[in-house]
């Protein structure tokens, strides 16, 4: 993990054992580990299939990420309890 002035925090993604996408994409996803699981600043929960999406950089409102597990494109939006994923049908 590294962070420079005015820059977003960056993350070194590791394979968390998510086996539902081809190997080279696995580091971008992990399973939600129960109700006590908390998301890191570079993570977003897919509202369609409930997989945790991971980015190599800290997420901000307006970012777009992909859930490969369910073929969905999401926009990062502010929610009541942190960031939420809004499905973009594009």
């Amino acid at each position, binding site marked *: 993990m590294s962070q420079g002035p005015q820059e977003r925090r960056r993350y070194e993604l590791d394979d968390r054992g998510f*086996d*539902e*996408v*081809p*190997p*080279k*994409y*696995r580091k*971008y996803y992990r399973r939600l580990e129960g109700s006590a699981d908390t998301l890191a600043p570079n993570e977003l929960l897919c*509202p*369609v*299939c*409930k*997989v945790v999406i991971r*980015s*190599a950089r800290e997420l901000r409102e307006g*970012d*777009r*990420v*992909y*859930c*490969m*597990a*369910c*073929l*969905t*494109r999401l926009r990062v939006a502010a929610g009541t309890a942190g960031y939420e994923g809004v*499905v973009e*049908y*594009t």
Partner: protein
Amino acid sequence: MSESTLDLHALPPEIFLEHVHSFEFWLGSVQGYLAGRPYGHHENLAEPAFDDAERERLVTALCHYCLGETMALEGAGGLIRIAPNRPCKIFLATQTVDEGRHLEVLVHRLSELGVADPQREIEERASPALRRFRERLLAFVATGDWEAALFAQNVILEAAEFAVFHRHARSADPITRELLLGIIKDERRHIGFGENELGRRLSHRPELRQPLFAVRRELDPLVLDSFAQTLARLGTPASERAELGRDYLAAVGRLGIA
């Protein structure tokens, strides 16, 4: 793009969509969780000692699932012909393969449980509501109604199966649990495909929502009630059964068909 320089989330949407609808993507995805699991589970898992009532309940649930997967197999295969473009046709070809595998592993599970004639058991135990759903789904396919057929199959049916299999897997024996969790991994792609494809069409043609309201009113009770009864027979607490339609309702809400 090499793996070292890949930033998945920076891909253009059209590149992402083309890739995730492909057979190449499907092959790379399923290898991770199907390899080494003949008929959906590791061979070294021990068969639990069911009493007669437990076995009966499980056989009935599996028969309902088999009917659901049969209609999904017939539906996905039929949808290929009426799909509006090549990526959808190719994705549906992969879904058809998935549904065929689901049916095969569920029938095999019935055999493992000592059911001598699985096809006869499925026909005898299948709920009338699910039979009615099958008739309507196949009618939409036969008349070429892409939106209604896709909504019925990949939103209503797949979402219900996704929820039921999740809840059943929590309390299932180790073999059934592993089999169901493998199916769930396929279902993620199917529900996502249905919602995203419909969402794209509705964003361009919002007038299509009205007929989908009617499809929903007619068909979602057939599937949701049937699977709620299945969970009740399996002893799932009422509080968990009430959650059955939650994800489905969220999906139709995002599509504006709530």
